[in-house]
């Protein structure tokens, strides 16, 4: 119970910050729509289902990277992370709360991006949307974890895509499969498995990243 309260308080802090400063979400929205426009001009006139599905995933992944890169910036600039680590709460709550906040931003961006994608390219099936939802969980869980790592390095945001993209390849495979394959069930199951597996690892090992 106490754990849930801590997570709630931390996540609320992030959402409130975003509501007041509006740093991340507008940037993500503009970025994803701009990416679609760029794709329109870089692809043949009527892209196949697989090609369209592929570019949706490239757009989602890079939009998510944008949000994840920003995730721990306020903590770093205000030196909040030291305080959070010293706070009498479980350290994994910091990761969980930040993941939930990033998930909220990503879903909010996709609520706009998916209809725009359907409008510009081709409509999405229910399985594809479910695939996006499942992938979002994995992207935010792993991405937030790696974002916390990257923010503590000298290279900072530069490092996050390098750390994140190899780990995101299975997500892309599952997501594209869920949207384009004849039997999407396997791919959705794979995405769920990925989410569960990596969420548990991130949850268990976050303490080692922030504490010495």
């Amino acid at each position, binding site marked *: 119970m106490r754990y849930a309260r801590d997570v709630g308080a931390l996540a609320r802090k992030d959402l409130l910050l975003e509501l007041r400063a509006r740093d991340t979400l507008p940037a993500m929205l503009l970025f994803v729509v701009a990416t679609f426009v760029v794709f329109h001009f870089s692809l043949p006139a009527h892209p196949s289902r697989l090609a369209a599905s592929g570019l949706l995933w490239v757009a989602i992944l890079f939009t998510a990277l944008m949000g994840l890169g920003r995730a721990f910036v306020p903590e770093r600039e205000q030196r909040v992370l030291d305080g959070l680590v010293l706070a009498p709460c479980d350290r994994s709550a910091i990761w969980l709360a930040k993941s939930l906040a990033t998930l909220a931003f990503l879903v909010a961006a996709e609520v706009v991006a998916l209809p725009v994608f359907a409008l510009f390219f081709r409509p999405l099936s229910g399985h594809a949307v479910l695939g996006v939802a499942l992938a979002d969980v994995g992207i935010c869980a792993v991405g937030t974890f790696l974002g916390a790592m990257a923010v503590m390095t000298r290279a900072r945001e530069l490092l996050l895509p390098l750390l994140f993209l*190899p780990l995101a390849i299975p997500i892309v495979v599952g997501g594209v499969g869920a949207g384009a394959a004849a039997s999407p069930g396997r791919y959705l199951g794979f995405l769920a498995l990925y989410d569960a*597996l990596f969420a548990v690892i991130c949850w268990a090992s976050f303490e080692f990243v922030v504490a010495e």
Partner: protein
Amino acid sequence: MRGSSPPGKSSGATIVTVGRLPRIPLPALAVLCLVLVTTALALVFFVVPNDADQGFSQRIFYFHVSIAITAYACFAAGAWQALRHLWKRDPRADLAGYVAVHQGVIFGVLVLLTGSIWAKISWGHWWLWSEDQLVLFLVLFLFYCAYFMLRFSVEPGPQRANMSAVYALFGVVLIPVSFAAIRLAKGLIHPVVFTRHGPNFGGWILVTYCVAQAAMLVLAYTLYRVELAGKQLDARLRAVREVLA
């Protein structure tokens, strides 16, 4: 934080912690390695018969597969050391884990090279996306290169050790997950030599493969020991310098 203090802070402790060396002496290991690699080369080129299907070029299999398994072994050793660091707080585990991953990446690059050569000779292309193992090693190569970027972007100390260890543990989870993903993404057209009923060959072929595998494992272990000894010496030297300064 027990034990793994950075060299800058308590140099006396560092001298003690990096002192122990593993059992088999390095010269003996080097001789064993030389004998095994020579035997493997002799067997591969002079003893084992040509493959009925692919002819002479199939002989690269003995190195390609054994190098791949050695690379996996190195990554697994890196993850094992990472676990020891996080769990037991063994002060030697951080450096050992880094060296194991380093050897794994070197062998991983060799897998990509030998795989490319084999693909070119067998199928006429230097790169085939339908080759599960090759694609997996490309993903792992990218992942472990990022490991080095991460490691060299953090000041030496307990936090770097922790972050490297956690990332190395991610790696061993990523291997089966990526493999499953690549299988999901593509149908299998690779000739399967190992089936569920054991290796699909016998006689000299099996002997040669086993010798080549042992040679590669011992080679990797020797290189690991050489690099580790060098790195430990470096750490001790730095510690001594700090004591004198």
